[in-house]
Structure formats: C-alpha cells, structure tokens
C-alpha cells in the first residue's frame, strides 16, 4: 500500500489475547493525516495494547496494523525517523541524565531540534544533572515528551501522556500537541481517561471498551450523533436493536446510548410514549458507555 493513499495509522481487525484474556476484539480504525485522535477508555480497556499493536511492539493474535503505509511489525528506519512514541511508563535509559539521554537519542534522528530541547528543558525546569532513575515520574514523563517532540515527528503516539503530570505541565503538553498538529500537520494519537484533555485538543475520538471500539467520530459530532434514550419497562421490547450501550434497571426500564442512523434520524423508539431522549456531554457519554 502506498503512503499517499493511506492513513498514517491503520488497524485492521486486531485481536489480541493475553494469558487467556482477550484484550482486543477485532479493532478496525484509521487515524487520518493531521488529526488529533484521543483514544479514550477505562483502565484495562485495551488502550495500551492497541497502541502497542499499532506500532508493532506486540504481535497481535490476528489482524495487522500499518504505520505510514508500512506493516507495523516490519518498520524501517525511514518510518521510525518520522514516528515518536511515549509509553505509559517512562522508564527508558534510567542510567543516563536527561541531557545525556536526549543528546544520545538525538543522534539517530535527522530532524532533531536541539534548540527546542534546550529551551524546553529549561522552561519545564527539568533537573539535568541527575540520572533519570532518580527523577520523579512526572519529570521523567516530561523528559520523554521532550524526546518525542524534539524529533519533529509526522506521527506522534502518546500513551496516557498526562497521567503523571501536574495540571500546569498537562496544559503545556496539550498546548504543544495542539501546536504541532495545527502548525506542522503532525498526526497525533493519544490515549487517556481524562475527558477534559480530550475536549481541549482532540479533533477525533475513539472509545474503546473491553477491547472493542464502540465509537469513532469527530469530537464535535458526538453531541449531534449520540444521545441517551430512556425507555419505560413497558416499551423494553421495542428497544432499538444495536445500541452503543444498554443498561437494564431494576424496574425493567432501559437506558440506551443510541446513535443516528445513516439518514441522520434517531431510532423509532424515540417516538414511543414515555420515552425520553437526552443530549450527552462527552463525559456523560463516556460514563454511559463504559460504566
């Protein structure tokens, strides 16, 4: 597949099983060039596994992934030079100091931005004389982010990048991500379970729940396309066939998350007597689906 007609990141029917537990269930999706895709899901939903499978860091049980048009399991250096990845646990090179690590890693990237490294180390107040093993998790996370951003990537993949950051650092990171996507056209995929982070920078969201991709759409569309439908128990049998999520209450009534059909209309059950349709904010949508 040529790069010109493919998305920078593509997952094709990814299934993966760890020790008898299925972590990914046939995930298919694409991250469009220049978009910022927020991958949201609860802890254990399979976000990190999906990211690793997308980058070829684990061999999926079935299915495959493409990065910039190349099979993820056989990435060439040409593609790796355009890709930056920050794992969930920033544990790399613990024996080096931040300056040593960045100088060392920078030698392998043709577009390495030394000025950005110096300025950001100073701006983010990172101790440069101590080995990385002795920095706090937040400081190490920031060093990893500097490494990822300094190579001027075309594709930036961040696995819960804000998890160890304080609110100030988180804002700075999100600003940087938005800048890179807006000005450099960098494609960003980041996983998180912090909805407010998504709302700040993501242009697209993908919701992963129990290894399944339940929705994938533009962030602005979520309010328009999805809503919460409550049906009294007497209409339970008339519930739409394939809702995004379905919860049965003790009195037999149903709460469903439903989406508009191909023609933009809501399911017919919305018209039923006593049925109630509520608009959902992103956080409510997440909670309704993932709870």
């Amino acid at each position: 597949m040529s790069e010109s007609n493919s998305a920078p990141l593509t997952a094709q029917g990814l299934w993966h099983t760890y020790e008898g537990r299925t972590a990914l269930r046939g995930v298919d999706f694409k991250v469009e060039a220049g978009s910022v895709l927020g991958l949201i899901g609860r802890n254990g939903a399979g976000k990190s596994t999906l990211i690793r499978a997308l980058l070829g860091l684990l061999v999926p049980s079935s299915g495959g992934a493409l990065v910039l048009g190349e099979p993820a399991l056989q990435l060439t250096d040409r593609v790796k030079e355009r890709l930056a990845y920050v794992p969930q646990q920033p544990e790399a090179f613990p024996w080096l100091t931040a300056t040593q690590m960045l100088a060392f890693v920078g030698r392998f990237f043709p577009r390495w931005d030394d000025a950005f490294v110096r300025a950001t180390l100073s701006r983010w107040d990172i101790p440069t004389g101590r080995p990385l093993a002795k920095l706090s998790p937040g400081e190490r996370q920031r060093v990893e982010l500097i490494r990822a951003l300094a190579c001027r990537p075309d594709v930036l993949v961040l696995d819960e990048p804000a998890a160890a950051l304080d609110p100030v650092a988180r804002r700075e990171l999100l600003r940087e991500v938005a800048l890179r996507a807006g000005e450099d056209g960098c494609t960003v995929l980041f996983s998180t379970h912090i909805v407010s982070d998504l709302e700040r920078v993501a242009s697209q969201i993908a919701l992963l729940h129990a290894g399944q991709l339940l929705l994938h759409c533009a962030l602005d569309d979520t309010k328009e396309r999805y809503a919460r439908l409550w049906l009294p128990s007497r209409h339970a049998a008339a519930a739409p066939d394939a809702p995004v999520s379905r919860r049965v209450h003790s009195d037999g009534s149903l709460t469903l998350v439903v989406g508009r059909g191909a023609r933009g209309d809501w399911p017919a059950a919305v018209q039923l007597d006593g049925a109630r349709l509520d608009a959902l904010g992103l956080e409510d949508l997440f909670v309704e689906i993932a709870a």
Partner: protein
Amino acid sequence: MNMRLVFGLPWRGSYRHKPWIMAFAALAMWSGALLVLHMTRPLWPAGWLGAGVVLAFWLAAMGVLLGSMVRLALEARRLCLPGLERATALSVCLNALALWVVSAVLLAVLSGHPAPLTELLAIGLAAGIAYALLPFWVVALALLLMPLLQGLATSLHWRGIAPQDPRFLEVCVAFVTPALLFSAWNWRRVLQHPHRPIGWFSRPIMLFATWTGRPRILHAAPADGLGRRPACRSRRGCSRRWRCTRPDRPICCVRCESHSAGHIRH
C-alpha cells in the same frame, strides 16, 4: 552508519562513570598480564599462559559488558528509535572482534605464542557474552548435564588438554561456536517481544540487573489492567500509614490519601 558512534555505543549508552571504570580495568589487567609475562619468563617457560589467563578474564568481563548492551537494544525497540537497535548489535560484534584481535596480536607479539593465546582469549570473550545473554534454563541444563558433558569430553579425549596442545583448537571451537550462536539467538528472542513478560527461568541473566540500587525488571507486564505492577512503591509504608485511618480521624485520613497519591504509579 557512523562507525565512531557504533564503536562508542558501549561508552555512550552507559552510565557516566562506566568509561572510567572500563579504562581503569583495562589498564590494570594489561599491566597485570605484562607483569606476569615479564616476571615469570626466567622461572617458568609457560609463564605466557598466566598472562593469557589474566587477559582472558578481562575479555570475559568485557564480554559481559557487551552482552549487557541488549538492554540498550531493548530500549530502542520499546521506544521505536530508528537505527539504534541495529547499531547496538553491530557495536557488540565489532567491539568484540576488535578487542579479541587487538589483545591477541599484542599478546602474541610479546609472548611469541600466537595460536594458543588467540584461542584462550576467544574462550574468555565468548564466555563473558554467553554469561550475559544466556537464559537461566541453559545454565540450569548445563549444570544438570555436567556429568554427560564430562563423559563427552573424555570420549573425545579433550580432558586435560592444555592450551599448548594442538587439539585445544577443537575445544575452543566446540565451546565458542555454540556459545555465540546461542547468545545471538537469545538476543533476537528477547527483542522480538519487547513488552511481553519473560519468566525468570528464561530471562537472560543481564536482565536481572539493577539500576541505582532499585530492582528493575525490564520485562514487567503492561500496566493496562492486565499487568502486575504494584500500585504502591512501599507496601509496608502504605499499610503503616493507612492503619491510623478511621472515620473519627479525618485529618489522618486526608494525610494518608495525599501521601499515598505520591506513591501511585501511573
């Protein structure tokens, strides 16, 4: 690929005092070897062998160091860094070759016994690399099969062969070839699944290493709900703090909550 960078990887990719320690070790071992060579020459005709053994031990230590570069390659794989993984493998091969050739030539020129010393140094270097890279089960298997290996050595008339013996070459080849092939296989195996936990029984010895005194298992399971990462760095400290929490002691509860928040590993 930049050859200076490739040759310098064991230095650049290691902690900052390592180059000095390595330089000091090289100086000490070479001085020791030359001293043995010089002092024993009038008294013991096979004194050169002592110098060879000293340098074989030094090369074994260098082999361990080169083998431990699998950690660097693993970091490169885990972070999708371009070129570093291949450069690391190349660096191990080239540095091992250079160390072996230079040491063998120098010692051979000084002692006048090129063949046995070259073989002895090759055994030392291969032993070091294999020590760093072979998984536990190979070591365990070798120990269990020791009587069988001794029997094999006897039947091949290898027992008691001194380095001066022409058949020492056979012993050298029989040890060095499988040790290096097995090490290369295990290097590749470790890197194939950088995030998959490897059981202690099949983990290479060098991956049990610690940095800055804190045990660090490089193949820790992923923490996305399927892993086994501890939520608290010091479980004893956590439980001790939490013991004081009760509904009638809200301040203690709040303190404990804020303390332990700093220990949660995300």
